[in-house]
């Protein structure tokens, strides 16, 4: 009984993530890269993404805290963040990076701080969502079920 409810929750949850724009097609492509020879690929990549992103967000906070902000450095960090988020399909995080880079060009510290705040929020949201998703996956496997393929 549990397994099926879990599977249904999983499918609906995944659907909602795509629908609300948290994930995009790149995430689906990630899932397609996972197979029997590489069974934990998605979890591994996403964990790497979390590590990378948290480090970058810390670096960004520190860089913007300096009296003389090195905007080139800030831009480089945002560029990295944009790359990794777009690679895993974290659409909303990626979308926040674009205005952020504009603010860097204009060398506007205030605006950059605002952007940083927003990115942090979006990152928290998507991290949370993905962790919930993986938890569901684990629960399904633990209960002996198979993970439904969602497209």
């Amino acid at each position, binding site marked *: 009984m549990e397994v099926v409810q879990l599977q249904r929750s999983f499918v609906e949850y995944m659907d909602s993530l795509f629908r609300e724009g948290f994930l995009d097609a790149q995430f689906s492509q990630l899932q397609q*890269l996972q197979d029997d020879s590489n069974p934990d690929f998605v979890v591994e990549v996403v964990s790497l993404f979390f590590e990378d992103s948290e480090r970058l967000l810390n670096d960004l906070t520190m860089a913007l805290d300096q009296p003389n902000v090195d905007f080139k450095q800030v831009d480089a960090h945002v560029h990295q963040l944009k790359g*990794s988020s777009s690679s895993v399909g974290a659409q909303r995080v990626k979308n926040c990076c674009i205005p952020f880079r504009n603010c860097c060009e204009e060398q506007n510290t205030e605006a950059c701080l605002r952007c940083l705040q927003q990115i942090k929020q979006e990152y928290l949201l998507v991290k949370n969502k993905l962790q919930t998703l993986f938890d569901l996956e684990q629960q399904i496997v633990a209960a002996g079920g198979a993970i439904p393929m969602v497209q």
Partner: protein
Amino acid sequence: MLIILMMVALAISIVTFVILAIRAARREMYLCAALIKQMEATQQAERISMNKTTASARANHDVRASLAGISGLIWMCRLQASPESKLVKYLDRMESCKNDLLDMLNSILDQNKIEEGKKQLREEEFDMEELLEHVVSIYYTNGAMKNVDVILDPCDGSVTWFSRVKGDRIELQRILNNLLQNADKFTSEGHITLRVWARKLGFDQSSNPVPNTRITSIGCMSCLRLHNDESSAEVRVLNTFQEDPNCVEFTFEVDDTGKGIPKENHKSVFENYVQVNDQTSVHGSQAGTGLGLGISQSLVRLMGGEIGIVDKGIGEKGTCFRFNIFLLACDQTQAHKHQTIRVDYAREDDLESQLGGGYISSDSYYHSVASDNSITSHQKRENSSVILFLREEERSRVLRRFMKDMIGLKVHVVNRHEQFSQTLKKVKKKIINLASYNSSSSETSKDIPLSALDGPLSAFISIIIDTGVGLTREMSRAMAEFRKDFPKNVSLRVVWLDKPGLDEDKLPSTDIVMEKPLHGSRLYHILKFTQEIKDGTTSRIKIQQSPVRQDVSVDAKGADSSKKLPLTGKKILVVEDNATLLMVCRTAVSKLGATTYACKNGREAVDKVCEGLSNRRHIGPSTSSPPFDYILMDCEMSEMNGFEATKRIRKEEARYGIRIPIIAFTAHTQKEETDKIFQAGMDYYIPKESKGNEILKAIDYIEHRRV
């Protein structure tokens, strides 16, 4: 005297007439006034409802923002909590409560969006058969636990012809989920059937799915006339859509044997927030918002169709929902092997009477596609039989009807164990007669054993057994007897559904073990055997679910099992400083069959290439193969970017007369950036987050340019 009488009579009649007229006029005025008041009241109610919708949408939005806040706070609490403490468990539960709230809000928000007319349907290509199989499989496992069979009925097989369509897959799945979920909720025994059939609209057919329920104007009600125009405009727009030659109408039926819905509620169940009283429902705890059918109805109407409840026959219990939608058919040539199933329309005249409900019309379209029924293949099908021994009665009935009426096979359905051996004996006797009749040698001497009789394949026999019926010793004996001395010019295929108790290694190699449910792609796979000649040895094919994903993977031990991957044997160097991107790229490339090497920046890459080049030189002058077949290079890196690295690599390569193709990863596609790429000496560029497909395309382009 008489004149006075006459005048009095006249006066009386005139007065009566006037009184009656006045009364009629007064009544009419009263009715008009009442009507106007009623109209105003309705309009006001509608306005209020719209206002409520807008307001609640706004409120929903605010609530979602707060929920997002809670989400972030829970995350931060987690950071502070020790992993094994009770606090984490409480946080988990808070999280799931929050998710529930979010889901409920989402369904309300969606319904509001639809009501406000703001919902837009996506248009993407998808595969209808795959969607159906996917959805039914989920509910099949659900139903299996309470002994309710969930059946996907292919009806006349028309969905196969229009499987690739363009439309909103997610919303269609939502509708199907809603109906199947309801059926599942209210059915505790029996079966749930999903029937689907498709019909291409001809130019002369004008379906009018939107019921025009507005009343025509009465006297001075001009506002009504306006409404009438609007709805007829709607119908006209839909009709132009339907006139598109690629428009296909799909009709779906979800039929269950559950509690049923009383006739008086047939219209009201679609009204939002109405729930049929489910005190006796199976999953007592499943309280829905009561919005599902309302949303489904709105979505169906958005897709140009209508949904309703179909009356069942007397004595049949349960509910049957039917809805139709219109989608655009895409290029069907990409669709899969199912299309080798040629539906036998020679038996069409029987169809109308046997199928009931009249779901197909003999469109000339079908004839032209399914026309190569040569006499020999027809005969083969005439002689072919399928023996079906399943646990579920309704499923047997559905499969039998499909195979007999649509494909033209003879189907023997076995309902009880005793029937099994009898049926086997009967079928064997028949094919032995056939085999000896069709053998090429004109005189069959009694000394030649039947199994040695040669000749073209004249018939196919398929036996489908559900191991859930309980394999008895009599059955095994009957099977062994059946297989003994089986004529060579008849092909036998045995399909076992589910594995318990089956010793797979002892089965002959032509047997198939398949998982339930038997529908969709698995069904077509079996039916293919009755339509094609398989000569030579075919290895045992296992159709199973891999433990991680529900894929149908064919694991054939034997010839042509290894598909050559596009980049097998190639060596590819990936240069990227972002760890996530690097991992994704390497996996994508490895999956295509290549061996990957990685570098974190330009300097490392240059070093590696130089090393590789000088190593080659030591091996021997005759080897001109480069250290790598391709290099995937990120443009912006710390410590030496892609442009600089490429320039240096090209300089070094010139010394050996080698040029390794370099493909740039870039986030910018403006001209100045792409100019920089080609000026540095790179050969092609792809977006940063590219995975398999784009990389292959780039490599393809380079190879073709070389030639």
